[in-house]
């Protein structure tokens, strides 16, 4: 297939997706379960892809994602709370010290930018570490960030450990999908560029990559910064989805959840991460909900055993463990969705 036809097909598919979304939203309503799951799924897809760029494509096992999301979410919320409502939100800090409000889109970009800046600073020392030491150091940084944001002295900016709210949010599913699609698209373009190939080379063998003339530190830092930029944007979108924000929710367990999504989708597959995100959110928020409610059969005489609050997550984590243990490649392995439809390159190459 020619490149231009391929691009045209992609654009057509994307348009089709947005048209489909529009009709779904018209039909089911903005508050329906389906639309809620789609919103949250799109946000998680972006965050999972950003983590996959680091863990799956560059082979840097980082567990700091929740920290960068937290920075993004707070940057967005702090910058976009309307002036009129600041007094009410910052009631313990005399209305805070930030005396301006930026438009939503600027807030989102600032969220990414600040997360990226932080990643640059943290990356300089941390990226020299290897595998599990890197994991634990990034996890540590995420905890430090959380402590700093909750620090009383910074209260006039971050509102301490109190709730941030009344910042602008989105009502429709379309803007979330638009933002997530653009960001994931940029990541895909990056992965298919020479930089992406360098990332993969580093993942497969650091020493060989260095021997081929790839500047290890430079590329690792680049992957780390870009991943954090999109994690920051993901954090901002998550803040918009939730409607209110508190630093306490961004614990290490959030990073673990995203890591598990990446593993289920397949380390090194963008489409895998996207599919896994929607599956993960749909299962945990919707399809497995019935496990959490006590159910009676035969006119209320027989109570189904085990079904009560919390059982959903148990079943869910057992399924995840099965994937981790027995289907280590995840849903997609290292393949992408389009690899399944396009004929293999070998066949194209051989000509009679």
């Amino acid at each position: 297939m020619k490149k231009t036809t391929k691009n045209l097909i992609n654009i057509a598919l994307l348009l089709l997706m947005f048209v489909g979304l529009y009709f779904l939203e018209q039909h089911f309503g903005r508050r329906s379960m389906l639309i809620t799951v789609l919103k949250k799924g799109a946000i998680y897809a972006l965050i999972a892809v950003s983590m996959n760029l680091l863990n799956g494509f560059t082979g840097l096992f980082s567990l700091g994602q929740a920290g960068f999301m937290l920075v993004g979410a707070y940057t967005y919320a702090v910058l976009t709370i309307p002036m009129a409502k600041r007094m009410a939100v910052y009631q313990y800090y005399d209305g805070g010290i930030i005396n301006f409000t930026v438009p939503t889109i600027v807030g989102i970009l600032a969220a990414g930018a600040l997360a990226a800046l932080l990643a640059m600073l943290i990356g300089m020392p941390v990226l020299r570490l290897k595998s599990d030491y890197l994991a634990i150091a990034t996890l540590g940084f995420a905890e430090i960030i959380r402590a700093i944001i909750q620090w009383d002295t910074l209260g006039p900016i971050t509102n301490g450990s109190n709730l941030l709210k009344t910042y602008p949010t989105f009502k429709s599913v379309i803007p979330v999908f638009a933002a997530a699609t653009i960001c994931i698209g940029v990541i895909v373009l990056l992965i298919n560029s020479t930089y992406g190939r360098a990332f993969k080379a580093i993942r497969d063998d650091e020493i060989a990559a260095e021997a081929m003339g790839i500047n290890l530190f430079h590329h690792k830092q680049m992957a780390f910064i870009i991943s954090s930029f999109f994690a920051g944007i993901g954090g901002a979108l998550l803040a918009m989805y939730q409607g209110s924000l508190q630093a306490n929710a961004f614990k290490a367990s959030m990073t673990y959840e995203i890591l598990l999504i990446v593993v289920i989708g397949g380390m090194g597959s963008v489409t895998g991460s996207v599919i896994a995100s929607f599956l993960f959110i749909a299962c945990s928020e919707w399809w497995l909900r019935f496990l959490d409610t006590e159910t009676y059969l035969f006119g209320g005489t027989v109570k189904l055993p085990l079904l009560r609050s919390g059982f959903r997550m148990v079943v869910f984590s057992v399924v995840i463990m099965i994937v981790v243990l027995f289907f280590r490649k995840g849903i997609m392995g290292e393949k992408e969705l389009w690899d399944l439809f396009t004929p293999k390159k070998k066949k194209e190459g051989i000509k009679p």
Partner: protein
Amino acid sequence: MFDRILPYLLSGISVGGQYALIAVGYTMVYGILRLINFAHGDIFTAAGFFMVYIATALPVQFAIPLVIALTVALGFTVERIAYKPLRSAPRMSVMISAIGVSYLLQNLMWYVTGGLAKQYPTIPWISESITIGSATTKVVTLITPVLTILLVIALVTIIQKTKIGMAMRAVSKDFETAQLMGIKINSVISTTFIIGSLLAAVGSVLYFSNYTSVTPTVGAMPGLKAFVAAVFGGIGSIPGAVIGAFIIGICENIIKALGYTTFSDAFTFALLIVILLFKPTGLFGEKTSEKV
């Protein structure tokens, strides 16, 4: 000044001892499998819940051995189910499995308890109050460091003098060669997990006697801190882990005494990062070099 610091110092030493008991489990597992056992903190929490439920049916002197036995069984099972099938897999897969186990155990505990904090039973004598100088504290504060040091001395003796200890040292030096020499690595690894879980169970009894309530996620933080202690002391070194744990426990409480409670957790991680940058092998760690 000293009178004001003393209670914090005492609880620092006590917490340090409890971290030490957890840290030994981390450091031994890492020494042998090169795995950060993220589930270790949750096994520690599970021990707390075992005690909560068993103490309602049995008197404490029978409950404690049973709790220890159950925790050991849990640690053993986790290793067999979640880590053993991945013996030949890349290290990262095992670590992801450990994170999965941690997620599973937390959700399971949430399900069983309904997400509510459970009151930890009072254990006679060690929960009693005692006055030292100007500070009032519980007996457990004084017992912890003594018990910790006794247990660690016992453990070091096992590792240095017995056959299984020798096998452990051999496996941690070189996995494959040890296997070729006829060491049954699976039983060595199981023993490691059994010892680690046993110490975590003891640590949990001491820890929760001090903190009185157990929630499903309560073990995550002490678990991570104990891991930091293990890295600080030099991963793989048992005395290192113990010293690291005491230093972290004491520093953390002194920071609380100075009025920076928000940063007591962050301090631990800041310490970790500083160590990793300037002395990645920790205080007593061995130097390793990367082979091509």
